[in-house]
C-alpha cells in the first residue's frame, strides 16, 4: 500500500484533466446529498421544536394528529370544542405549571388568527428552548389588539399601530378573498397591531395573536357564522358584555415535572366533565413527520441517485483510461506488480478521487453554509449547523467513500485481466 499510493497518485496526476471532471461531478453530488440531509435535519428539528417546552396538548377527544395540526400548526377545522370550565379545572391542577388556552377559527388574509392569553408569550418556547421575542411592541393587553408573527408582518408589510380586520372562518387562500369580496368580515371591529414577533421558523411566524376576549367581542352579534341582521354592537359597547369565552379548541400545558406527563395524560383521558384527550407533542410530531416525510425521502433518494451517477461516471472515466494505460500496466507487471497490485492501484485511484470529491463537496457545503447560514437563519429560522458532522452525516460520508471504492473494483478487475492477457508487452 505504501509503495502503491505514490504510484497511483502520480498516475492520476498524469491524467488530471479528465479525472478532475469526474471529481467535480462527485463533489457536486456530495454537496447536494449533504445539503439535502442538513436541510432535512434542520427542518425536522425546527418542526419538532414548534412546540418546544409544551409538555401536553389537551383538546376534545379525537385524532391526535388532527389535534396537533390544529393546536400547533393552526391547520384544519376543529370538529369539536372543549368547555372553558374544563380549562379552568385543568389550570388549577397542582401538577400544571402553566396553561395556555387556544381558540381558532378566524383568519386574516390567509393567516390564522389565534385567540389566547398573554401567558402565551411568556411560556411558549421554540428552537433550543428559546422564548418568543418581540421585534417591536409588546403583548396585547386590551380588546382589539393584535400581535403578529414575523412572516405576517413581512409579507403584508405591517407596522405597529396598523389596523387590520379579521375574517370569519379560516380561508387559507388569498384568492378566496377576491371571490367573496363582501364575505364574512369583522369589518366593524378592527384590531390595532401592538406587537411584532421575531422570526422563529415555527407556525408562530404565520399567526396573528389576539386575546380570547377580543374574539368573543367580535362574535357578539354573530350567530351560525353570519352577522345577525340589524344587530350592531359598536366596539366601545363590547366591554359591557361578559367576554369570557364559552369554548376553546385546545390548551397547551407545561408541567412542574416533565416526568409526570404520562400520568397527567391518563388523568386527562379519565376527565369526567367531557371527553378530552392529551397528547405528548414530541410523539405526535414524530407521527406527523412520518406523514410529511415522503417528500423528504424522495428528495433524499434523488440525491443518492445523483451520487450514484457521479460514481458511475468516475468508474467510466477510469475504465476509459485503461486503454491508454496498457503500456504502463505491462511495465508495472514486468517490475513485479501482481494482479492484486494492479487492482489495488486502480482502487487507490478510485478511492482517492472519491475522497477528493467528498472533501470538495464538504468544503462547498461548509462554504455555502458559512455564507448563507445567517441569511437562512434570519429568513427561515433554520439552524443549518445543528447537524453538521453528526454521526449520521459521518456514516453518510463513510458510505459514499465505501461505494466509491466498491465502484472502482470493476475497472480494477478489468485492468488486472487486461495486464495478465497482455503479458509483458501489450499486443496493440
Amino acid at each position, binding site marked *: 500500500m505504501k509503495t502503491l499510493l505514490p504510484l497511483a497518485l502520480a498516475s492520476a496526476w498524469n491524467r488530471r484533466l479528465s479525472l478532475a471532471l469526474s471529481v467535480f461531478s462527485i463533489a457536486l453530488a456530495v454537496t447536494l446529498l449533504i445539503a439535502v440531509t442538513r436541510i432535512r435535519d434542520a427542518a425536522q428539528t425546527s418542526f419538532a421544536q414548534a412546540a418546544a417546552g409544551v409538555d401536553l396538548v389537551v383538546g376534545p377527544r379525537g385524532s391526535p394528529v388532527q389535534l396537533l395540526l390544529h393546536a400547533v400548526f393552526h391547520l384544519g377545522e376543529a370538529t369539536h370544542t372543549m368547555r372553558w370550565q374544563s380549562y379552568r379545572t385543568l389550570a388549577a391542577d397542582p401538577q400544571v405549571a402553566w396553561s395556555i388556552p387556544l381558540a381558532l377559527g378566524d383568519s386574516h388574509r390567509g393567516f390564522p388568527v389565534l385567540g389566547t392569553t398573554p401567558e402565551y408569550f411568556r411560556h411558549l418556547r421554540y428552537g433550543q428552548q428559546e422564548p418568543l421575542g418581540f421585534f417591536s411592541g409588546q403583548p396585547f393587553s386590551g380588546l382589539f389588539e393584535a400581535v403578529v408573527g414575523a412572516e405576517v408582518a413581512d409579507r403584508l408589510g405591517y407596522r405597529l399601530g396598523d389596523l387590520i380586520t379579521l375574517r370569519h372562518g379560516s380561508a387559507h387562500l388569498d384568492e378566496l378573498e377576491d371571490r367573496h369580496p363582501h364575505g364574512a368580515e369583522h369589518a366593524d371591529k378592527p384590531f390595532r397591531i401592538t406587537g411584532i414577533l421575531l422570526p422563529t421558523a415555527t407556525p408562530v411566524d404565520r399567526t396573528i395573536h389576539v386575546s380570547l376576549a377580543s374574539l368573543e367581542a367580535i362574535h357578539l352579534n354573530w350567530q351560525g357564522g353570519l352577522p345577525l341582521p340589524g344587530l350592531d354592537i359598536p366596539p366601545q359597547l363590547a366591554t359591557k358584555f361578559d367576554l369570557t369565552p364559552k369554548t376553546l379548541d385546545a390548551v397547551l400545558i407545561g408541567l412542574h415535572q416533565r416526568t409526570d406527563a404520562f400520568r397527567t395524560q391518563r388523568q386527562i383521558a379519565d376527565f369526567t366533565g367531557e371527553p378530552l384527550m392529551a397528547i405528548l407533542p414530541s410523539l405526535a410530531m414524530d407521527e406527523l413527520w412520518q406523514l410529511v416525510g415522503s417528500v423528504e425521502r424522495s428528495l433524499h433518494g434523488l440525491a443518492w441517485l445523483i451520487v450514484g451517477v457521479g460514481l458511475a461516471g468516475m468508474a467510466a472515466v477510469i475504465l476509459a483510461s485503461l486503454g491508454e494505460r496498457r503500456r504502463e500496466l505491462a511495465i508495472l507487471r514486468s*517490475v*513485479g506488480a501482481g494482479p492484486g*497490485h494492479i487492482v489495488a492501484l486502480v482502487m487507490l485511484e478510485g478511492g482517492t478521487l472519491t475522497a477528493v470529491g467528498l472533501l470538495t463537496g464538504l468544503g462547498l457545503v461548509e462554504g455555502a453554509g458559512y455564507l448563507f447560514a445567517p441569511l437562512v437563519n434570519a429568513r427561515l429560522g433554520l439552524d443549518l449547523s445543528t447537524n453538521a458532522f453528526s454521526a449520521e452525516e459521518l456514516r453518510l460520508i463513510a458510505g459514499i467513500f465505501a461505494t466509491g471504492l466498491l465502484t472502482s473494483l470493476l475497472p480494477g478487475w478489468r485492468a488486472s485481466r487486461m495486464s495478465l492477457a497482455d*503479458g509483458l508487452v501489450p499486443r496493440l
Partner: protein
Amino acid sequence: MRVLDAIIRIRDLSFTWPGSRRPCLSQLALDVNRGERLFVHGESGAGKSTLLNLIGGVMLPERGYIDVLGRPLGKLSSSNRDRFRVDHTGFIFQQFNLIPYLSVLDNVLLPCRFSTERARRTGGSASAEARRLLAALDLDPRLAHRPAASLSVGQQQRVSAARALIGRPELILADEPTSALDPRRQAVFIELLMGEVTANGGTLVFVSHDQRLAPLFDRCIELLAQ
C-alpha cells in the same frame, strides 16, 4: 559442468496463442548457462517475445516445463511467480519502457518498490545504486529528476537498462531493446549493457530480429516461425 550450471532449462516447450491454430512455439528445448550472453534471433512472429514472457513466468506453457534458477515456474502459484520474477529478473523492451510521468530515478527504482530482495541487494541505498548505474550507462546525472517522457529514445533505453540491472537480478531479458536506435548507438548500448551485466555477474538473454548483432554475443540461437 556447464549443464549443471544452467540458469534456465527448457524442455519440450509448446505454446499456442488462444484463438490461433498453429503453435507459436513447439517442442523447444534450451539451456542457458549462468553468466552466458545469449542472442536469440528470429523473424517477427517466430515467438521471441512469447519465449521471454514464458521465461518471465507471465504466461504458462501449454506443454513442457521451464526451470529458472532451479525453480520449476509451472509449479509456482501466480503470486509466487510475480515475486520470483521481480526478485530474479530484469526486463528491457523495444521501446516505451518507462512510465512517462515518473522521474528517471523513480523509474529505475521501480523494481525495489515491489521487491525487498532487489532493494536489499542494492547494498543499502537504492537511489545511490540507481545513480551509479545511470552514470555507468553514460547518462547525464542531471537527468535523474527529469520526467522520463522528456528523454530521447536512446536515453530512455539506458534508463530501462539501469532499471533491469538494479538490485543485481540473476537474469536480464531483453526484447529488441536496440531496434529503435541507429546502428552506431545500437553497438554502444549493447556494449554498455553487457559491461554492466558482466560486472553484476548476471546472465543475458537478448532477443532480436537483427542478425548483425549476433557476433557481439557468446552464443546465438535461431527461432523459426512455425
